[in-house]
């Protein structure tokens, strides 16, 4: 009997992981005393490190870093040494704040653009020129006007999350079936009730897709923004560990950024399922 597709797929996934870890291990193997010459004095000073071919940590070293970091995620030993949980919490709170502010602006504005061809035409040039701007390009202006590093990164998240949400909301609202609106009209349903009970549920899947895209971009951007402004957050953590030349912490942080990003996307996947409908 053939194993189920899920089982076979997870076997292939496991195989890929083993091959990857094996290749990593091989690439970072110490090549032994003979292969690399080291000045004896230097070698005495550096211990074993001088003879190591690569300073890239082995999978084992990274594994023990992950274990020790995750076993104590919320320690706080001053500004340059905080647990990964605290750093992630800073980043997440900035992302959520910027994202929520963007949603508050983008969804109603998207509604207006979607319902009014006039507003669509009037606002379209601004959207088109604002959309491709890298959110980090706003950082100097934000720092100058807001004068607060943390608030500036929230602003950067706000400005990068707003466009996909606004465009998707407008698109979803504009493509609500005319028949549904006509049903509401023949029933003399008020404009507000039509918006809440017909247009919103009809456009909700499209709006949520926009939110999902925005959240993905926001999580990408927060790392770069925090590298730039420093202080706290996962982006700052990565940059700080690079300055400490602690590559195994850097790799650990990369892994955590991926894991949190995946979780955020999964949350929106669940939300999208809740509002989706089948015609």
């Amino acid at each position, binding site marked *: 009997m053939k194993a189920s597709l899920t089982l076979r797929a997870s076997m292939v996934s496991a195989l890929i992981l083993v091959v990857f870890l094996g290749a990593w291990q091989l690439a970072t193997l110490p090549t032994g005393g003979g292969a690399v010459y080291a000045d004896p004095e230097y070698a005495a000073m550096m211990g074993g490190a001088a003879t190591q071919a690569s300073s890239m940590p082995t999978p084992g070293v990274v594994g023990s870093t992950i274990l020790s970091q995750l076993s104590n995620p919320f320690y706080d030993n001053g500004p340059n040494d905080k647990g990964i949980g605290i750093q992630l919490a800073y980043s997440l709170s900035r992302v959520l704040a910027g994202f929520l502010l963007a949603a508050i602006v983008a969804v109603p504005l998207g509604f207006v653009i979607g319902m009014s061809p006039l507003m669509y035409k009037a606002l379209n040039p601004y959207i088109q020129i604002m959309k491709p701007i890298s959110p980090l390009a706003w950082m100097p202006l934000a720092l100058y006007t807001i004068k607060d590093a943390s608030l500036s990164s929230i602003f950067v998240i706000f400005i990068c999350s707003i466009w996909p949400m606004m465009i998707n909301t407008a698109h979803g609202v504009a493509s609500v079936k005319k*028949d549904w609106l*006509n*049903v509401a009209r*023949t029933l003399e*349903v008020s404009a507000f009730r039509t918006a809440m009970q017909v247009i919103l549920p009809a456009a*909700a899947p499209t709006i949520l897709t926009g939110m999902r895209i925005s959240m993905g971009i926001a999580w990408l951007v927060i790392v770069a923004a925090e590298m730039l402004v420093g202080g706290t957050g996962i982006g700052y953590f990565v940059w700080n560990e690079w300055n400490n030349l602690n590559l195994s912490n850097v790799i650990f942080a990369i892994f955590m950024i991926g894991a949190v990003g995946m979780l955020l996307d999964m949350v929106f996947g669940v939300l999208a399922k809740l509002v989706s409908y089948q015609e």
Partner: protein
Amino acid sequence: MNQPFLKVEGLKKVFPSPGGAPDVTVFENIHFGFEKGEFVCIIGHSGCGKSTILNVLAGLDEATAGNVFMDGREVKGPSLDRGVVFQSHALMPWLTVMENVAFAVSSRWKDWNKEQVRTHCMKYIELVGLGHAADKKPHQLSGGMKQRVGIARAFAIEPKMLLMDEPFGALDALTRGVIQDELVKICDATHQTVFMITHDVDEAILLADKIVLMSNGPLAKIAEIVENPLPHPRVRQEIHHDPQFYAVRNHLVDFLVSRSKLIAQGELSSDYDPLHPPVIRPVVEALKLAA
């Protein structure tokens, strides 16, 4: 003079053409009326503007000229007095059958509590035979069942007039027959006033008391109004045994096949008066000779 329940006066619709071409007048000088409790079908080829007339009656579209009066009041914009059954059923897919009907019912009676709304909805959902499917979503229903929900929703607000735009056009013949039977039953029971578009001659004979015939567009006219001589109650399986049936059927088919085109080309009788389109009551040849 006594005014009919529904009165259409001098209706005209012009569609602007793009790029400077002359505008198209789909129909003009449309006059007709009918009484409360009557079932009226309108028949004509595509492009004669039947749907536009129905949308004007519904208040969803505006005529270029002319007026519509219902129950002595001018029709301006959509109203709960006129229920609409849409061709594409127009159910909201995120709501269940019950919620779809309840959306309409709670719009009609805003002060009703949940229990009142539910009881009222259930009555009409059961009327179309869908009591067992009340909590299903539209995508779980067949095309015929969806259309029945659309009919239940329109009936549930107890409108003064029901407007139906080819409600059975997208259904297979068997399903169509079943729903037609249900519609006959409901209308006989409620004496609902109905204005319906159809392409199906047999459907018109089964359902309608009056059949409005429109000539081809553009510049479509009401060629005549045919009174259905078949008596109530009409049963689908039996009406074709009535000798009158073929007289009406032949008259309607002749109109659709040839006369609708000829009239559009200008072959109208000299005494044609658009204000009072001729009212015809087809009779069997044998009866005519006997008379």
